[in-house]
């Protein structure tokens, strides 16, 4: 054996880094060209969708307070632009995995409002027959692989769905939504690594709302941003303003396009904030109700888009108002449906454990 320590394979001793190309730490908002990709119909759909989410959540809040909805309820209000902007690119064939804060993703991915509302009321007509509840809303036929009560529970499932898509040579993509807190679970690391080595058709959409329960992201994450973690997985990482649906739509569109074309995964960090507590009942003493944080909290993604859409001539104010009315009505009907639906039959307790 020789003593020439300096003789290493070139592949080992010479490694290039492309950090600068991989990660863009600037927070993007919609570019000037974004509007060109937005038809008026798309704009209306997205606005209606954001309204649906908002109204769904405000009603969930109300009926939780009234004691009609039991359990843990984590509201998505304030973050609508993310689910909406991302899912606007998806069809029923594409898959998403969601989180404990999942109502928004499920609405945006086409989840039936009635079935969803009935589910969180615990009724037999719910998407899960009332057996899952708020944290377990799913609709496999719509590509909704489930809200998930386990923080980080979606990473593996999303990765598997992407393996399926790649194996089937389909151009379906998978979107994995997850929070800033979830980014500290080990399974985040495992799945981003696998998605990258296998070039899977998947987009990891991080919703950085600054908090995991009562713990700020700036405490729990060693990295300043979630996006820069993409370096470790040799995948592109970008940051986008999560209150700007046009910006999310544009950024997500690029990543989804890449995924569909077989060019591999992307990590998108959407900077956002939640309007309410971690769950209903949270006093939120960890939030600053002054200064920069408060200013950011006060930015309403629905208003942002109203202004943007009107300014850019995509929709008129009247149209937007009408969509809002419609949405309010749709959600009210969903509530009525849920309230009037029956409880599950006792036998349901024992059913659906095993498939035949």
């Amino acid at each position, binding site marked *: 054996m020789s003593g020439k320590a300096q003789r290493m394979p070139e592949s080992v001793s010479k490694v290039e880094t492309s950090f600068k190309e991989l990660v863009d730490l600037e927070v993007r908002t919609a570019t000037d060209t974004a509007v060109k990709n937005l038809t008026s119909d798309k704009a209306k759909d997205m606005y209606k969708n954001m309204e649906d989410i908002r109204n769904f959540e405000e009603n969930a809040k109300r009926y939780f307070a009234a004691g009609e909805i039991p*359990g843990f309820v984590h509201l998505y209000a304030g973050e609508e632009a993310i689910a909406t902007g991302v899912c606007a690119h998806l069809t029923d064939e594409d898959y998403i995995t969601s989180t404990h804060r999942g109502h928004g993703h499920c609405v945006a991915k086409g989840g039936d409002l009635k079935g969803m509302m009935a589910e969180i009321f615990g*009724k037999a007509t719910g998407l899960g027959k009332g057996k*899952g*509840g708020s*944290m377990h809303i799913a609709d496999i036929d719509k590509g909704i692989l489930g809200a998930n009560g*386990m923080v980080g529970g979606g990473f593996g499932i999303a990765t598997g769905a992407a393996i399926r898509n790649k194996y089937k040579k389909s151009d379906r993509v998978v979107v994995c939504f997850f929070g800033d*807190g979830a980014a500290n*679970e080990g399974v985040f690391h495992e799945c981003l690594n696998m998605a990258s080595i296998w070039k899977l058709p998947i987009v990891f959409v991080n919703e950085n709302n600054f908090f995991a329960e*009562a713990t700020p992201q700036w405490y729990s994450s060693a990295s300043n941003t979630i996006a820069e973690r993409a370096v470790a997985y040799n995948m592109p990482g970008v940051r986008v303003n999560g209150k700007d649906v046009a910006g999310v739509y544009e950024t997500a569109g690029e990543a989804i396009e890449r995924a569909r074309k077989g060019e591999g995964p992307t990590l998108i960090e959407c900077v956002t904030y939640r309007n309410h507590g971690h769950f209903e009942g949270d006093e939120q003493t960890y939030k600053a109700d002054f200064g920069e944080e408060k200013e950011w909290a006060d930015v309403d993604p629905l208003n942002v888009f109203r202004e943007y859409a009107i300014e850019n001539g995509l929709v008129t104010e009247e149209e937007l108002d009408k969509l809002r009315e419609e949405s309010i009505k749709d959600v009210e009907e969903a509530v009525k449906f849920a309230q009037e639906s029956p409880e599950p039959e006792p036998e349901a*307790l024992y059913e659906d454990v095993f498939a035949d």
Partner: protein
Amino acid sequence: MSKEKLFMQAINEALDQAMEKDEDVILLGEDIAGGANVKHLEEKNEDSWGGTMGITRGLMPKYGRERVIDTPISEMGYMGAAVGMAVTGLRPVPELMFNDFIGFALDSILGQGSKMRYMFGGKATVPMTVRTMHGAGASAAAQHSGSYYGMLGSIPGVKVVVPATPYDAKGLMLSAIEDNNLVMFFEDKTLYGTKGDVPDEYYTIPIGEAAIKRGGEDLTIVTIGKMLFVGLEVAEILEKDNVSVEVIDLRTVAPWDQETVIESVKKTGRLIVIDEANPHNNTATDIASVVSDRAFDYLDGPIKCVCAPNTPVPFAANLEKLYIPNADKVLREAAEIIDDLKA
């Protein structure tokens, strides 16, 4: 002095007294203080949540963030860190928020903490107490309502405690923290708001000792955690039929108190175990198996285990109610073995 206190206060008080007594006792977990690095809270030395259910509230302001450590959502890592802290001389008390999250942390317990002493020939000591929350009844659905003390109790090297009363909660917590082994301490989320007399001073209750909560001659009911109250309810009902029931609160499920249970069965000849866990390979079956071996000759009838069904925990409130063992179900089983007594 003794005062009426909430179950959650009893636990908080135990933690407080353990920390007061021994500076090596350190709590860690997700949001057990809350609000780490939030400026306006820091300035006032305030915690935010003190745990999801507020159980550890006030301990951070008193002992500081070095001893009440908010962790990232990294269960395997911080549970492993607790093992590392324990083996190097501290007495960590990590919290696994819901016992259902065990799938994220199990290796740190099963693979590392529980086996270390044995593998290292007795030269390592792992004094740690894992606090965790279990139980159905809060509409928390399938991923936040399970009861996995039986699963953990199957692991050699792990002790498992499931208190039912504020008094036991405090005394067992202090014992667990004093114990030089890995102890899993299960707290039923639906018991936090219950009340009972709890001495103000520091006291311990031996791990591994059951408590006879009601004496009786005809039937032994062994209960785990809040099933105690189902057992007591059944005892009251059966008393009216002149059936005298002995109710034993197991308190520790690993190792469980074989002597007390067997003595009781030798006297009564009949046994029902109430366990909220799913029905297979759980503590109830363990008890049935030991009793059907060691006290076989004293048994006057079949041993009955009343457990949750073999399903995940359903969300809908009416189904969840059916899921949890209740007096009706116990009475139905009891009917089979006390027939002769009532006649």
